[in-house]
């Protein structure tokens, strides 16, 4: 067991885990951030995408011990003071949620996209979210939501 310290959504957590524990399982099962959704466990589906030290990352493709000392934002950290993040609000408005499984990863990916490119074209939005699988195939609504939130 190794002690891992992480700052998640602005609060610092310490917990013991085995070296083989992925960051996704550590956040979800050990720290209780169940918004971290575990799908494929090999980086393809994107549902475990979180923000790690300011940049998007797949939580299933990292060991928790590897990122000891990092700062993480999960979907639970997007809303503040009871107000949804503009992207969350837009996903709700445009029915971009569907079943909700891919949503946390989509939001992390879209947050990074809008940070780097505040006025993306539809093609750029599609390119950015093409690494996140939506099994409801609700992509059009998600693209609409991201485009609208960018305004």
């Amino acid at each position, binding site marked *: 067991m*190794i002690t891992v310290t992480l700052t998640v959504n602005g609060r610092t957590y310490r917990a013991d885990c*085995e*070296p*083989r524990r*992925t960051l996704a*399982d550590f956040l979800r099962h050990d720290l209780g951030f169940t918004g971290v959704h575990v799908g494929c*466990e*090999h*980086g393809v589906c*994107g549902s475990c*995408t979180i923000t*790690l030290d300011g*940049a*998007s*990352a*797949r939580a*299933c*493709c*990292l*060991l928790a*011990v*590897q990122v*000891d000392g990092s700062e993480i934002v999960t979907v639970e950290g997007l809303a503040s003071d009871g107000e949804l993040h503009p992207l969350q609000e837009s996903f709700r408005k445009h029915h971009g949620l569907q079943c909700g499984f891919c949503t946390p990863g989509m939001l*992390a*990916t879209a947050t*990074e996209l809008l940070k780097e490119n505040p006025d993306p074209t539809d093609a750029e939005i599609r*390119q*950015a979210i*093409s*690494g996140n699988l939506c099994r409801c195939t609700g992509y059009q609504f998600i693209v609409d939501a991201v485009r609208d939130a960018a305004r």
Partner: protein
Amino acid sequence: MKAAPFEYLRATSLDEAIEALGTPDARALAGGQSLVPLLNLRQARPSLVVDINRLDELSFLRKENGRLEIGALTRHRAVETSAVVRSEIPLLAEALGHVGHVAIRNRGTIGGSLAHADPAAELPAVMVALDADFTVRSASGERTVAARDFFLGPHRTALGRGELLTRISVPSHRGGWAVEELSRRSRDLALVAVFATVTMTGEVCESARIAVAGAGPTPIRATAAEASLTGGPMTGDAIALAAELAAAATDPPGDLHAPADYRREMAAVLTRRALARAKEGA
């Protein structure tokens, strides 16, 4: 699935990492973007994982004597977005844009991608096309391996036990260049990808470099195709011939994603497109 148990060492110095990598079945852990999925699927079961992420001395990017020196631990995204890379070796920046999605490139490292040696990966082929040199370090010192001698087979490299890839040295290239890639999903590993550079004097091709990914056990350097172009005018016919020669040099795998014949045919098509575009930019 979940990984099988392993011992873990967070290396605090290069020497410590190298010594630990001498342990049988030890594996270095860089970005983890290939190794952690392999662990999760139990396709890799190392006895010891040596985490090199704290070795800041392996993370750098600088211009030196007309070459770009890249530390093995430098993240894909840092190289891709670097202004120096965009001006000195735009082919490298463009190729990196095809390496997975941004979330993968934020964590994956240049050295990790090369050491992983996936025949369908972009970076190994790019390094072969650009005639890069790799520095490899072990307890007995450093050695330099040319990119074209580094890749021995699928996921097999010239790295021995206790050796760490530390530095990648790439000559600048400002002539024409192009990346042409066919994949099943945008930013996935290539079914086939072609990386080409061309320099011209007037209408005459001075040099051409062509490397193909996804079409053999290692990246394939299409030397016969290059030779057929060098010293002559780059006409449509010359390009078509070079494309046929490049395809003939491939030894593509056939799998459920694409049969071998299709990959070979696409190697010709993509080479033709890549050379035409590289010529335009030269």
